[in-house]
């Protein structure tokens, strides 16, 4: 399964990169994917996630071909 992972704002700085592309063998949750890609960085408590540009819980399963995004609380307006 191929997944594109994107990081925004302060999480881009935390991760030290703006995106990853990974192959996984079985479905994982958003939280598991963060751990896999950032093993030495605890996910901030306030971290938000989106799959295919819709908000999801960190426990949502990520399906093949999805775009997964991690970002901090939004501050627009």
């Amino acid at each position, binding site marked *: 399964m191929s997944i594109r992972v*994107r990081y925004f*704002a302060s999480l881009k700085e935390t991760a030290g990169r703006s995106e990853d592309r990974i192959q996984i063998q079985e479905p994982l949750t958003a939280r598991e994917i963060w751990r896999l890609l950032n093993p030495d960085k605890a996910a901030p408590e306030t971290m938000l996630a*989106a799959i295919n540009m*819709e908000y999801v819980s960190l426990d949502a399963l990520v399906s093949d071909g999805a775009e997964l995004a991690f970002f901090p609380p*939004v*501050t*627009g*307006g």
Partner: protein
Amino acid sequence: MSIILCEQPIEPWKELEAYQKNSTLLKGKYGACNIFTGVMRDFNQGDTVESMYLEHYPGMTELQLKHIAEQGMRQWSVLDCLIMHRVGAVAPNDTLVLVACWAVHRGDAFDACRFIMETLKTQAPFWKKETLATGRTRWVEKNSEGYQ
């Protein structure tokens, strides 16, 4: 309904004039318009702010703004709705956001505009990074509740 992200300065009054003039929907039919503009201040949390960068998530930002506008228009009787939001580098006194709701009656215009604005603040993927007068940069961590 129109959702626009702007890299260039927003001129809210010119935009509103043009939008209202061109809307066939509105002429003679609406009795109320409520508009909110959010503007960059030159201070925040006790510090002088020199400039700001508004990051967003291209695609998701537009999609979420559309969801929010549709929800507001469904929940109240709104004839038309315009949302403009700045992205990229901005300076104090720049308009960051413009939300306008047109309705037959004032209650719907007020309620929908406020709902859209509050929801945008918590749901639309934008992130502010401030550059202070000292040269230091910092991410704004949380939007205010609206009164302080």
